[in-house]
């Protein structure tokens, strides 16, 4: 019989979205340290899934389901982590699609790819007002804020966040993306990084957050 941590790792690798929460509860009952369960179980599992996706061995829905499984187990394990202790992560990221833009999927992919690469991701959803990006970043103190815009008409909304954000917190990095966004445009509005696709976003994020 495998130990609880291995079972959790395998459950992420086998995309067991429906049953993984029970496994997580079981591990807590068995007295497993929730931080170990997250770091050695879930995080290791999603890392393997992410690597397989990167090599083209598995497809996007498998990656998304792996991330969903991880999320379901985290919902059980995270509240059990003793106060004052934090799981180690590659960095904390706030992500959202800007105001007046309700395109979701590209932003979701980046969020999924980031979490499968060890980032802790707070997803604000779509049609996010500049004020909400700012409020949440005060609260969460992220290493990076990531924004998506899919229309030429909503692109300028990203600048609306960057200027006041950088004024408050010079250290926070900003990553932008979305079909009409270009490298040049990203620089022009003061973003630190740009990527044309979800995999590229991870590479840029890793460079920006060390």
């Amino acid at each position, binding site marked *: 019989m495998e130990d609880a941590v291995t079972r959790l790792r395998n459950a992420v690798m086998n995309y067991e979205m429906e049953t993984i929460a029970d496994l997580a509860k079981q591990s807590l009952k068995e007295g497993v340290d929730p931080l170990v369960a997250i770091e050695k179980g879930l995080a290791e599992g999603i890392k393997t899934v992410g690597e397989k996706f990167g090599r*083209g061995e598995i*497809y*996007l*829905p498998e990656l998304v389901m792996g991330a969903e499984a991880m999320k379901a187990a985290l919902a059980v394990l995270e509240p059990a982590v003793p106060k004052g202790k934090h799981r180690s992560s590659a960095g904390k990221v706030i992500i959202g699609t800007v105001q*007046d833009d*309700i*395109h979701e*999927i*590209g932003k979701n*992919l980046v969020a999924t790819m980031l979490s499968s690469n060890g980032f802790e991701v707070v997803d604000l959803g779509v049609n996010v007002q500049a004020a909400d990006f700012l409020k949440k970043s005060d609260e969460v103190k992220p290493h990076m804020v990531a924004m998506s815009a899919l*229309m*030429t*008409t909503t*692109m*300028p*909304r*990203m*600048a*609306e966040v960057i*200027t*006041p954000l950088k004024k408050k917190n010079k250290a926070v990095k900003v990553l932008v993306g979305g*079909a*009409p*966004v*270009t490298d*040049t*445009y990203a620089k*022009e*509005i003061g973003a630190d990084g740009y990527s044309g*696709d*979800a*995999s590229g976003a991870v590479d840029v994020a890793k460079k920006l957050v060390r």
Partner: protein
Amino acid sequence: MNAMSFGIKRGVRFNILSDSDLERIHWGTLHVLEKVGVQVDSPSCRKLLKDNGCEVDEKTRIAKIPSHLVEEALVKKKKTITLAGRNAKYDAKLDLNHSYMTANGNGAVTVDFESGKRRPSMKKDVANSSRIIDSLQNVHIHWPMVSSTDQHPSVVHLHDFDASLNNTEKHVMYETGVTLSDAKTLTEMGYAAAGGEKEYRRRPLSSCLQCTYAPLQHDAGVMDASLYFADAGVPLVFFGMPQPGATGPATLVGSLVVGNAEVLSALTMTQLHAPGSAVIYGMGNAPLDMRTTIRAGGSPEHAISSAIATELAHYYGMPSCVGVSATAKEPGDQAVMEYYTGCVGPLLAGADLMCGVGLLEDSSCLFYEQIVIDDEIVGAIARLIRGQWADDETMALDVIEKVGPGKNFLAQKHTLNNMRTEFFMPNLVDRRSFDAWSQAGSKSMRDRAREKVKDILANYKVPPLEKDVQKKVDAIIEKAKKPMWGGESKTH
């Protein structure tokens, strides 16, 4: 047959879905609209639906639409739509017997024709590509191909429209009327260019393509703008863009049901608000590539989805507007394969509007060369779908008898009479011998496309708008300018 008529006359039609398939899709869609509903973000559209008997939840913004409203909208919509050109010889009659190719639209990047460098697109790119489109025989409807990102951010799309109107006499379809104020200004510009509202309503020289948001959502700005356009006599395309496996079910037909529910609910809202307004059925059901997360615009699945969407549109008595694009990063082999695959499927199934030529990286990057290569692809497909028939002229029994065994048909009057219409004469495809080709510099198709573009840009002229019309257009753009972040007039 009149070979000089505008558009591609169709004589061939593939059948993919049976009548019972189409009925199942229709009834399935009505079921979705009644039971699942659509999310309507515009308060005024929700009120419109509620006043007409829909079940509307103000909290979730979901409206459930009874079937009879959809069926009534299908009866009320405008029956025959003509997309007029600034020059009447370019009027595109959507009679369900002709296909029209459009330019692709609203990329944000251009590969500079002189330097070969990738850079943000500029107004001069909109102007140049409009002129190229005007010159091409196989592209019938224009779209502003890229955005004028060198202009003030609040009026980029107005400059796109201005540069298009001045550099082609063909009909201009834009996709940037995404808020009520955009709709008002774009309409005002259209009226000015047509010589007044009355003339515009008679011959609308512009139209607006509106994207619905998959799955099953309607953006507030887009729908408020759409109702305005419907009132103002601006023809609309409602374009569903579910991505099978991502924002629609993985099966193409299931994803079509999602897109169909979006298009039919948008149609219903416009017909409740402005009965008899012109609506074209649009669908871009292209899957997300499951390895790269890029939309597979030039895939066989997109082509066949566009073909079956066309069959569904015709089942509703509506002209279809379906898409093609390429994920290729440069003109050449891959772009040709993707554009050919993407165009031939829908055109064989009778697509009325096929959008569009000339952009790569899934409709985001403009290469001037690709525009003329795609024109050639459409030319070949136009020949493929023209149809064949047997009558006295095509049978040519008298000529066969006259020539007899062992001779040839080169010097026959029948040959002379038919050769210019019977054979597609390529422009960029090189059919010469190896020796002739290598002596002329061993040029690739891309080299030849480049030469053609150079020639068009140097020599092809389009009459601009008249001076007093231009003055009005300029004034409308100036008035629409407003302070905006990321532009020259930052307020903080």
